[in-house]
């Protein structure tokens, strides 16, 4: 043992500890987990802000989905629905952007592994849940940027929401993002290759856009399509989003399919199951080879 080492080494309960080691751990464990979530999210957000192409794509995505697909549907097929299709589509697209963009951005977890950064995360003394939830929060930042794009495209198309509706929607946003991110973890938990990860995430995202009632009403869906639409996690997110926006209005029953409590229970259940299973698969696939 060197003199320098001896000077700063102390014995603590039979274990060796650096004299200044404890002093560097000022944050209690629970707060450390929250801090780690924040740090992981902040790293993703900082990276995203330094890549303008990603931000531009997030802003342009609504132009394609809502402006072109939604706009065409609104002009040609929205008559006789019994409700304002524009507003229906706007809420659906907001939920879709939060859910789908978070899901898609979660592939950065695989990108990290590809660029070896995940090694830095995996040896950090924090739980895997902190890493995954941090990743979901970071991913949801781009989803929020996409929502700004949706609102901008909506404004151009003459579709707007009242400030209180936006506030209520904003309050729901973390749950919706968490739900999308957790779903992504189920498929990303074991994937090591980013090409496969992108394909897998597209495979779980795209069908939801059409089957979850984002821009096409699904209340009359029956048979296999009816079953599939109810099996889509985003269906409950979209329906909950509409339930809060349409609350107390005469067209509520024409637009909202389920009781909000059912939606909430379905979202919470799916999110918890996907988050726990996905994180377990992620931690296990890294360590148990």
């Amino acid at each position, binding site marked *: 043992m060197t003199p320098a080492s001896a000077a700063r080494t102390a014995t603590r309960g039979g274990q060796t*500890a650096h004299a200044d080691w404890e002093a560097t751990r000022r944050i209690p464990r629970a707060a450390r987990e929250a801090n780690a979530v924040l740090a992981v999210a902040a790293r993703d957000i900082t990276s995203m802000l330094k890549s303008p192409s990603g931000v531009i794509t997030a802003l342009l995505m609504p132009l394609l989905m809502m402006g072109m697909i939604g706009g065409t549907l609104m002009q040609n097929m929205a008559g006789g629905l019994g409700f304002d299709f524009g507003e229906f589509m706007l809420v659906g697209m907001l939920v879709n952007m939060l859910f789908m963009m978070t899901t898609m951005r979660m592939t950065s977890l695989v990108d990290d592994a590809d660029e070896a950064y995940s090694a830095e995360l995996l*040896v950090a003394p*924090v739980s895997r849940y902190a890493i995954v939830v941090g990743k979901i929060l970071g991913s949801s930042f781009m989803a929020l940027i996409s929502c700004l794009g949706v609102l901008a495209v909506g404004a151009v198309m003459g579709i707007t929401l009242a400030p209180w509706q936006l506030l209520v929607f904003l309050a729901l946003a973390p749950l919706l993002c968490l739900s999308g991110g957790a779903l992504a973890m189920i498929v990303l938990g074991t994937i090591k290759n980013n090409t496969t990860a992108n394909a897998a995430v597209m495979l779980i995202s795209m069908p939801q856009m059409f089957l979850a009632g984002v821009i096409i009403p699904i209340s009359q869906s029956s048979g296999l399509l009816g079953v599939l639409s109810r099996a889509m996690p985003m269906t409950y997110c979209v329906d909950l989003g509409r339930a809060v926006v349409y609350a107390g209005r005469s067209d509520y029953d024409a637009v909202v399919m389920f009781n909000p409590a059912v939606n909430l229970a379905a979202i919470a259940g799916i999110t918890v199951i996907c988050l726990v299973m996905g994180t377990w698969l992620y931690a296990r696939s890294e360590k148990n080879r």
Partner: protein
Amino acid sequence: MSVIEVEDLVKQYKRAKKPAVRSVSFEVQEGEFFAFLGPNGAGKTTTISILTTTLSKTSGRVQIAGYDVETQHRDVRDHIGIIFQRPTLDRTLTAEENIRIHACLYGMYTYRPTYRMMPASYRERVERLAGVVGVEDSLFTRVSKLSGGMQRKFEVIRSLTHTPHVLFLDEPTQGLDAVARHDLWDYLDQVRREWGTTVFLTTHYIDEAEGADTVCLIDRGEIALCCPPQEMKRRLGASTLEDAYVGYLRHTADDAVPALGGLVASGVGHEGERGRGA
């Protein structure tokens, strides 16, 4: 006092016919410079991955700083710093941003979005670590714009930010030019002298292990030799560690099991002892 204790470590990968690591045992003392050498596929990376909690073991006992790697992995992670074979800095961030996120992940400071908003103690710590190698000017440079050598130095700085007991260096100079290698080792020597940090090194550049307190040679998943470098050179009749290492590997290339006893008549018993109490 032992800071690393490995006893009968075995790792059998799924679908592999033979174990990658077989009944490996050694100890590393506090403040020691321990070099873990071996050819490709010998079991170095497998062993270091288990020691750093990123890979589960099949059997055996591994303790770091008194904590079990399997059941107390978070405590182990708290006490170790790692430089991986591949650079693990986020290339889109600045060097300082990488260090800041690391410090927050290790629970040292609450995250703040800018360097200036971080506590003075953090800024002093980072500037002091960067100052040792004179890289303060590059702290706020995007990692993608730094040379490979500079990136490695910042990885060392980052791994030392949380004052680890043990610094694991998994082929830290891979891909660096001679000058960058030299500079990095100057820095690591300075860190060892100043802080007395225990260093666990794996490398293919055998000359880097000349200054080690103990050299441990692993071959085909088993410890073949564990002793000071001078001892290894003497027993193998070589003037440099590299000659001793190459000589050993050439002599045992076709043997089923590393057999230093056949190569050097008097060595085996003593090597066993060094393996236990290096």
